[in-house]
């Protein structure tokens, strides 16, 4: 018996309507734990060869972990995956809220959707009853509007996942939305659902979960809450949530502005966490069983309208605020809301919008093509760009393809400032003087993303000869010395195992990463819930296995995959930071190569960044190694 898990993979063929409930294989749970581990292995096993990401054959997955839904801090995560519309390789995205627990309480660890429905549909999972229903009433509506309607129609006790018009139009960075403000943002998984004609998934779960040692879990779970509440940082984190980092990123000059041309905003105090508290916030909104709710739900008034929105998170502040130069928190929140309702990833959409504005400034896109003049700092212009990309209207059809593909089409040097890796747009940290973080972005498996390995602290620590060279108050405007590129692969690799482990367990990592809630606590809870005795190090070894697997998936899916896919855009080598704390810095091609060489060597990959058979065998992926060799 698999304690702690629901025990079932729910397979839905949207084309035929066939529902198949498959037992969760114990070997899958044993080797890959859950969540991201399930996504990686099931994609490897079940995706047919030569599948296009937006074809019916793509496999869309929603996976929980063994700790999802149990009484412990922040047990509400869901992990989604498919072949990536953005990169053509491995795609996954993680989401908070309450969807994953509902799926488990309904009796399912994983939901897998293949095929394409004949007509727009919603998937309703009411415990053991699973059916596709027509979605005519809702196709074309906003993601938030659709959730509101479905909650009313089906009942408040359903957890709802929706796509917006952007997903319906298969915009390559369309997201999935849930709980009025949570998203699975990255890699375009909303487009995959849209390509399957699935508008929404509604889940009600009224069943219970098992645990190996129920009394033990109950006691340890309550103690876990007490321990987190007793952490010295407990009260300090929640008030501003992720927006609380905005001041710091500007002080150290890593805040992207003007399409990553510059890295500091003199208006940052107008768009930071304090600005949210002063001008927007109504409620601290949290995920399932979370003691430190980071969601800031509020109301924003602008000339374009008044909206209710959860956020903006730091990333939205960076990519819509900094990158598009929206200098008031209400404007950032409004743009955030536009993305949420349209079903666009705020990160990629902000990056695409700022790329388009730079193209307009350089005469590579015209007013006629765009439909109006656009400029940095112009909310109406940004909103217009978001709308046309979501609708694939006019030049929006090209913008909807993401910066990599759009720049290939537009040319004129625009590829140099298309800020992406592998086809996934960059997130909220400008790295020309942060080589560790640059390496993290280069080697993240889904494309440019910060959440696998966040090493900016290491980069800052390595940016001064000795600590007495530093300005005591850490003010902005003080120039920062060049950060060392030596040994950066070590913390990157370590964190690439630690952070995604939480995606395998099915819970949030914040209490560990930010409050110091120790890893051994999770190992103890894992043992009480599943009956398996794994140390924290054992669990990290599984996460390392998954890391090698996701890289290998991209090797299999992308014909010429390798080192060339790991480089950042030319801007970061050719254009030193023009102003701000990191003025004058950039990373040369040689330095990027040195970073990659060290990383590949540490990973056991060849010089082209391909996992070797030895590397795969070392992490227990002999079968994957054989299968890869067979198909190459």
């Amino acid at each position: 018996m698999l304690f702690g898990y629901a025990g079932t993979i729910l397979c839905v063929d949207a084309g035929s309507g066939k529902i198949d409930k498959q037992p969760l294989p114990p070997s899958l749970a044993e080797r890959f734990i859950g969540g991201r581990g399930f996504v990686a292995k099931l994609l490897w096993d079940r995706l047919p060869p030569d599948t296009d990401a937006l074809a019916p054959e793509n496999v869309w997955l929603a996976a929980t972990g063994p700790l999802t839904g149990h009484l412990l801090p922040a047990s509400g995560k869901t992990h989604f995956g498919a072949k990536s519309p953005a990169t053509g390789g491995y795609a996954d995205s993680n989401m908070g809220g309450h969807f994953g627990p509902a799926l488990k309480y309904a009796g399912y660890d994983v939901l897998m959707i293949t095929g394409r429905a004949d007509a727009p549909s919603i998937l309703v999972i009411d415990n053991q009853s699973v059916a596709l229903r027509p979605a005519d009433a809702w196709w074309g509506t906003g993601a938030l509007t659709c959730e509101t309607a479905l909650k009313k129609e089906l009942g408040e006790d359903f957890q709802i996942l929706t796509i917006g018009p952007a997903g319906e139009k298969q915009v390559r960075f369309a997201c999935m939305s849930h709980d009025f403000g949570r998203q699975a943002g990255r890699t375009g998984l909303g487009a995959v659902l849209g390509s399957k004609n699935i508008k929404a998934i509604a889940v009600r779960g009224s069943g219970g979960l098992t645990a190996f040692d129920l009394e033990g879990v109950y006691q340890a779970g309550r103690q876990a809450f007490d321990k987190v509440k007793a952490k010295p940082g407990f009260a300090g984190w929640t008030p501003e949530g992720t927006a609380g980092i905005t001041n710091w990123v500007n002080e150290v000059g890593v805040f992207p502005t003007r399409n990553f041309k510059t890295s500091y905003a003199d208006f940052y105090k107008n768009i930071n966490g304090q600005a949210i508290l002063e001008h927007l916030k109504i409620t601290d909104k949290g995920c399932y069983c979370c003691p430190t709710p980071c969601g800031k739900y509020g109301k924003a008034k602008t000339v374009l309208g008044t909206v209710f929105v959860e956020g903006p998170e730091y990333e939205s502040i960076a990519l819509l605020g900094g990158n598009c130069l929206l200098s008031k928190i209400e404007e950032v929140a409004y743009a955030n809301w536009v993305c949420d309702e349209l079903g666009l990833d705020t990160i990629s959409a902000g990056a695409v919008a700022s790329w388009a504005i730079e193209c307009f400034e350089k005469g590579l896109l015209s007013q006629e093509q765009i439909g109006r003049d656009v400029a940095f700092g112009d909310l109406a212009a940004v909103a217009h760009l978001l709308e046309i990309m979501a609708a694939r209207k006019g030049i929006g059809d090209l913008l909807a393809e993401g910066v990599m593909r759009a720049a290939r089409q537009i040319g004129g040097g625009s590829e140099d400032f298309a800020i992406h890796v592998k086809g996934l747009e960059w997130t909220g940290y400008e790295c020309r003087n942060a080589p560790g973080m640059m390496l993290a972005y280069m080697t993240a498996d889904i494309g440019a993303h910060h959440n696998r390995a966040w090493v900016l602290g290491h980069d800052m620590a390595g940016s001064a000869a000795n600590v007495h060279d530093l300005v005591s108050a850490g003010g902005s405007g003080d120039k920062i010395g060049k950060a060392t590129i030596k040994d950066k692969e070590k913390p990157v690799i370590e964190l690439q195992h630690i952070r995604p482990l939480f995606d395998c367990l099915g819970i949030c990592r914040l209490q560990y990463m930010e409050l110091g809630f120790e890893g051994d606590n999770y190992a103890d809870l894992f043992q009480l819930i599943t009956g398996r005795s794994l140390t924290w190090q054992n669990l990290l070894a599984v996460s390392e296995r998954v890391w090698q697997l996701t890289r290998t998936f991209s090797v299999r899916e992308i014909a010429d995959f390798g080192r060339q896919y790991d480089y950042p855009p030319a801007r970061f080598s050719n254009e030193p930071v023009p102003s701000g704390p990191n003025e004058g810095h950039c990373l040369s091609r040689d330095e990027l190569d040195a970073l990659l060489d060290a990383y590949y060597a540490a990973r056991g990959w060849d010089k082209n960044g391909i996992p070797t058979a030895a590397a795969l065998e070392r992490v227990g992926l002999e079968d994957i190694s054989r299968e890869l060799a067979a198909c190459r």
Partner: protein
Amino acid sequence: MSITINLHLSGGLRAILPDRPECITVTCDRPELAGQILIEAGINPRVIMKLIVNGRVADKSDIIDQDAEIYLIAPMAGG
């Protein structure tokens, strides 16, 4: 006058500074800028995002003029 300050390093911070203990004690004979106290403790102020001083959020530019338990929070990834 003698001010005793206990600096507690968060889990995230100790990942960046693995050779530092969980708690560093600094003694000052006069009120001092929080950022300067960090330098005297051998901690790069740039790696500190937030300080919690006696349970309240504070800044590196705040003056510490009494005994304090200071919890140091490293910057983390926004979502």
